[in-house]
Structures are given as C-alpha cells and as structure tokens.
C-alpha cells in the first residue's frame, strides 16, 4: 500500500514536470533568439539584404563553416565573407550575452529552418567550439 502511494506520487511529479516543461518557452528558444538578435538584419525569411547582408536561408556557409558558427555568433564577424558565391563585407556585431546552451538552440534553429536541413549540434559540441574560439580583440 505504502509503496504504491509512493509510486503514484512519483508518477504525478513526473507528469507535472513534463507538463510544465511543455509550457515553458524553452522549445522555441532558438526561434525567439533569432527574432531578437538576428532578424532585423537577416530578415524574417532569412534572405538577408542583397549584396550587403548574407542570407541564412539555404546558405552554403552554414555547412562549409559549421564549426566556426558558434564563435561567429558570440564574437561577431568582420572582413570579407563568401556566401553562395557572393562576397559580402559588412561587420556583424556579436552577441556576447548569449550562454552556450542558448547559442546551441539558436544554431539548431538556423540549421533546420529557412529551407536548411543541416545536421544539428549537441550542447557539448558547441561548448567545445566556444572554448576554442580564437582570441578576440575589441
């Protein structure tokens, strides 16, 4: 009798946790972060701005520079960059305030939306990449 009560309690707690997990915005964090930090320049549909801001949508750069993207988001980018055969040269500000897990969510959102069907990142993978970011001077 006591055992089943305990099991029931545990089950209830588990159900509650799952439910509350569902209602947090965690799942859509990547989307939210994109809207907050990326969208005004890279556009709602990830198309960028012709000749000036590279696209996110179907960008070969996401695959060819997969391992550099985490640092790119944190530190920003400067200098020429070739995306889908077009050279861009506009500074992108980094978002230093993003945590490792947030960058993971953002990257996975980018890699699997806007017509992209690229490999997802694991959290530990991104952590490793971020630890190995090249020294950045302001």
């Amino acid at each position, binding site marked *: 009798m006591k055992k089943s009560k305990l099991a029931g309690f545990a089950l209830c707690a588990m159900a509650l946790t799952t439910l509350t997990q569902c209602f947090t915005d965690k799942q859509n964090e990547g989307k939210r972060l994109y809207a907050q930090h990326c969208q005004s320049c890279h556009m709602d549909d990830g*198309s960028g*701005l*012709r000749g000036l801001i590279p696209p996110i949508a179907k960008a070969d750069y996401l695959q060819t520079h997969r391992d550099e993207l985490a640092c790119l988001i944190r530190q920003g980018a400067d200098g020429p960059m070739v995306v889908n055969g077009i050279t861009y040269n506009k500074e992108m500000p980094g978002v230093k305030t993003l945590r490792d897990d947030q960058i993971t969510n953002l990257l996975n959102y980018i890699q699997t939306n806007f017509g992209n069907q690229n490999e997802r990142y694991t959290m530990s993978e991104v952590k490793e990449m971020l630890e190995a970011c090249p020294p950045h001077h302001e």
Partner: protein
Amino acid sequence: MNFNYKPLAAALIILTGLFGFSCQGGDSGKTLPILGSREPVERVVNGETIIDTVYHQVPDFAFINQDSQVISQETVKGKIYVTDFFFTTCPSICPKMKSQMLRVYEKYKDNPNVVLLSHTIDPAHDTVAVLKDYADRMNVRSDKWHFLTGNRDSIYDMALSYFVGVQEDEQAEGGFAHSGDFMLIDQNRHIRGHYHGTEQEDVDRLMQDMDLLLKEQQHEEK
C-alpha cells in the same frame, strides 16, 4: 407661420449625396491627400478677390549622390519620388527598410518618372565612397536610386520638411534614432503619403499609391 420644410429637406439630401459621392469618388477617381499645413492666399484678378490654397511644398535642396553628382529639385522635376532617411551602419531597422525599398526599385526601375532618394543621417561616416560601395553591392542603378550625403544640418532640416523624425542619440542602437518612414512626393513637390518602410503590407500600399499618382500625373499632362 407655416414653413414648408420639404424643399429644404430635399436639398439637404441631394447635397449630402453629392458630398458623399465626391468624398468616395469610386475607386478609379481616388486621389491622394496633400499632407502638411496649408494656408489661404488672397490675390486679386480683374478686380475680384480669389483665394488660393497654398500647400506645404518640399523646399529646394542640393545633396551629393554616390556618383558625386549634385542631386537637387531639378533632378526630380516632373517626377514622383520616394524618400527615406537611414545610415549604412544601422543595425536596427535600416536593413528591412532597404529590403523593402529594393522591392519599390525593382518595380519602377524602368519607369523614367520615378526616382528614389535615400538620405544618410550619418554623413560623417557615410561618405560618397561608402554610399557608392553600398549601392554597388545592392546592384542598383545610380540614375534611379540616389544615396545622398552632404551637410549634416541640411540633411536634418530636410528630414523635418519631409516630416521624418531623425536625431543623434547615443542611447539608440548605432547612435542615431530615426523613423522608418517612406514618404511619397509628387511632381509638384507636395507630400502625398507616408508609409512604414519596414512593413511589407504598407509598402504594398505605397506602390498602389505610386500607381495612382503616376496616373494622376499622366492625366495632368494631357
């Protein structure tokens, strides 16, 4: 006293009908308002006093475009134009404004009666060379879309004449605060509409109004 209301009522009804008709005018007769202050000016012709309405008109101007050419009221003479204020390093609303303006450019790039004028509000950074690079990268023709720089105060005064809010603001992203408005100006340099340059639907409306204005212009020329 016996007063007959009937003719008066009938007249009122007819007047209301006429007024209502002239207000709506059907879709084909729709005209755009002239924005800004207006004042009556009296003049005497053949001994009769005539009252003219003088509308707000964009004053003369002279700025330099990405090809180092002087762009003035002469450049837009007899044409309609769309104008906005931005800066090339703007991290907030400008890319969206420019992507929407590109739609307008693509639609009217072969129409000789349409011009686009984008003023920088950061002339210290946005020199002719910077604007040239910006326009070339977007691959837009400089005889159609002029990116203008010049004297800072003249640009800011010009923004006021177009009713566009701009100011330097250290708190704002990129150091400048400005509205994302697109203003539509007719061939008489009257302002005929303002639109949110960051919103696709409103820029659709702008292009509809441009078509109306071009028709009106054709009509006037006939």
